[in-house]
């Protein structure tokens, strides 16, 4: 069975590597936005989390949150990282050059939440079409009424 890492241990390891700002919680570590690429690279190459399970996002009242679930095939353990970004400047570094699979899921997050992944090789809409206006999974997105064509 996959076991979760000890997040206090993980946060102190990351802090020892990159400095302050890594906040452990009960079931995740909050990573400063600027450090997510470095932290993910450290976790992949040094801590052995070689598999990116998923990338998703959430819309809270005052910030966006991007959620990464990493897995280690070798030790059969998983870790959850969260990154906060402000609503008016939703920019998060891309992990697509670490895991190619991140490219697809970051595009989906960009498509539905409007969070832009900097240095993403091919950041464009993936589920919706190019001309779509708005980001439908944001809480302030107004759905279209019945019969509206556009």
């Amino acid at each position, binding site marked *: 069975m996959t076991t979760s890492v000890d997040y206090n241990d993980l946060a102190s390891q990351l802090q020892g590597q990159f400095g302050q700002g890594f906040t452990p919680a009960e079931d995740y570590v909050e990573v400063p936005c600027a450090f997510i690429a470095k932290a993910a690279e450290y976790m992949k190459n040094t801590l052995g989390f070689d598999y990116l399970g998923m990338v998703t996002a959430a819309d809270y009242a005052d910030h966006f949150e991007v959620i990464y679930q990493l897995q280690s095939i070798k030790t059969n353990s998983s870790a959850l990282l969260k990154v906060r970004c402000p609503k008016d400047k939703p920019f998060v570094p891309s992990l697509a050059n670490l895991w190619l699979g991140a490219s697809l899921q970051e595009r989906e997050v960009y498509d539905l939440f409007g969070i832009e992944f900097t240095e993403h090789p091919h950041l464009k809409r993936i589920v919706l079409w190019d001309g779509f206006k708005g980001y439908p999974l944001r809480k302030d*997105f107004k759905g279209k009424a019945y*019969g509206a064509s556009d």
Partner: protein
Amino acid sequence: MEIEPFTAAEIERRESDGIEALRAASQHPIPDPDSWLDEEIKRNVMFTTVDAALNWARKTSLWPVTAFTACCTFEFIGASSARFDIARFGMEVLRASPRQADLLVCAGTLTWKMAPQIKRLYDQMAEPKWAIAMGACAISGGIFCDSYSVVPGYNHIVPIDVYIPGCPPRPETLLAGIEALRRKIAKESIRKPK
């Protein structure tokens, strides 16, 4: 040499001669040009209206195009298998090419991203063609009718002939809808294009 004009009596005589000659030659009726048709063929020729013959052919050989968007498809697959046996209606040939099909069974939720492909398939089908909206999503978008990504009913994209309610409709319901379409086709006429 001077030619004398005909007298009135001469004109009368010539007219009379002509009539008598035609009358003498016309004592027997002209034979039927189709008399070479023998009795065997005569007994085997049916008379019908073009409409009735065409409609009979069309309604008994509806060929659906293989274009299904979501879960109502599985009820269609059930209807086309042995238990419900859609082959009774001459419909078992699902065509992979829209150019060989004349029925679009709109089964399932249609998203705006998929809509151009469905419209293109319908436009590629040769006339005469019909479309059945199968299930709540195909009729109105169903529970997704106010979604940002779902077409609120196939009739925004293609003209629909028969609406089959249900979520999903059971195969019996689908067969009842196909029966309704067959009755509709039987009333069509070549004089009034669809």
